[in-house]
């Protein structure tokens, strides 16, 4: 359920029948707070191969078209990144554009 509805909780009569909710609720759920280590992306080293983007289980690698209309990495979505480190591991050995750093307390 979204944040709004947790304030005023729906009754059984008001709830949609069965266990179903509106789509895309994961966007509103901030899983970034779970992270203990964070990926740090180095824009200068990145070759935009998108290996991190396709490997990320939480769709937390941000991409966008550049001026040549080619898809490039633009950053990391820290609201949803859980800090699993897959992007850093999958980043080509010769590139190493993503490094994992301890999350500050």
């Amino acid at each position, binding site marked *: 359920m979204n944040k709004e509805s947790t304030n005023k909780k729906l009754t059984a009569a008001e709830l949609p029948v069965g*266990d179903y909710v509106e789509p895309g609720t994961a966007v509103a759920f901030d899983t970034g707070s779970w992270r203990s280590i964070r990926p740090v992306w180095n824009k200068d080293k990145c070759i935009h191969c998108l290996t991190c983007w396709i490997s990320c289980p939480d769709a937390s690698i941000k991409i966008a078209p550049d001026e040549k209309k080619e898809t490039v990495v633009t950053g990391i979505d820290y609201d949803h990144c859980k800090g699993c480190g897959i992007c850093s591991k999958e980043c080509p050995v010769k590139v190493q554009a993503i490094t994992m750093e301890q999350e500050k307390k």
Partner: protein
Amino acid sequence: MIKTVFSKGKLVAKTGNEVMAEAMRQIEPDVVAAYPITPATEIVQIFSQFVADGVVKSEYVAVESEHSAMSSTIAASAAGARAMTGTSSQGLCLMWEMLYIASGLRLPIVMAEVNRAISAPLNIHGDQSDTMGARDSGWIQIYSENSQEAYDNMIQATRIAEKAKLPTLVTTDGFIISHCMEVVELYPDADVKAFVGEYKPERYLLDTKKPYTLGSIDLQDYYFEHRYQLAQAMRDSKDIILNVAKDFEKTFGRKYEMYEKFMLDDAEVAIVVIGSTAGTAKVVVNELREKGIKAGLLKIRVFRPFPTEQVAKDLAHVKAIAVLDRADSCSGAFAPLHADVVSSLYAAGVTTPKVVNYVYGLGGREINTTHIAEVYETLVKIASGAQKPANQVEYINVRKK
């Protein structure tokens, strides 16, 4: 016994399994996913032949287990299809966790179920332990006394499930009905199709214009409300079941209710029973009536939802009642049907009838008119005060010592 009651009906000789498959052919669901198991195998085997022969346009999914059968049926139903399956005994046991998901997601799946004992010891014969085990899973449960009822119940179940948004299973007693050839009246395809109508789900996952999330996590704040909805839907489904039965009677001429009363209105002693044994008991009731004994019978057709108020009302005047269970709950107390009958009576303030509980027929053990006559004899003694009712469950036709 069975007569044509519908002008375009046709009398045929068929087994319980064959008529259930026949009902499925006429209903022609979008998807059937099933795994074979004795004594229910034939239902889906015959249906898969219909698919292979192009008689129906249904999709048949041959899965690797009953767990997958129920999972696939759930997926098909969630996607927006009219989905069915069939199973028995261990197969229903393997579906266990998925049964609750089907009801929790409020998917109107219909299952043809053949009642069979549960292992161990290994046994393939008829008793109702399997569906009694699933009694709290949020499925509507409709039991059949004979093949005609099995056929009629399948047709009604489709509409009941879709209206109540509850999965519904229709059972027959293993081998006794499933493999016994009887005369059954079948209705023309077009009339059955018209009766069940086209399935139009209010919402479905393949509807890309109205996307939604199904089966999300539901913790302390909402789980209870969803379970309450399910329990309430089960209570509300009683009216739906009766309305569908009324329409069925209007269309095809056969009358159905939540339960059947047989010589009950003036009865002093009565048996409450589910399934094929009701037929045997009716013979005994007729014999006793000829001797002047006021015997009666109440046959439960719909066990879930349980018709609690009406059962209490119709049993209130009976002096002694025997509830016959073809399943033992191994609870150290009483068997499932007895528990529901007694709590229904007590809740309605009906405390005068003496009620005893018998477990019978486990693993297909013989239950005949002599056994049932003995139960009525005991009831007559209890009713007259000559014998005290047993305060624990008793067993028919078992070698105890």
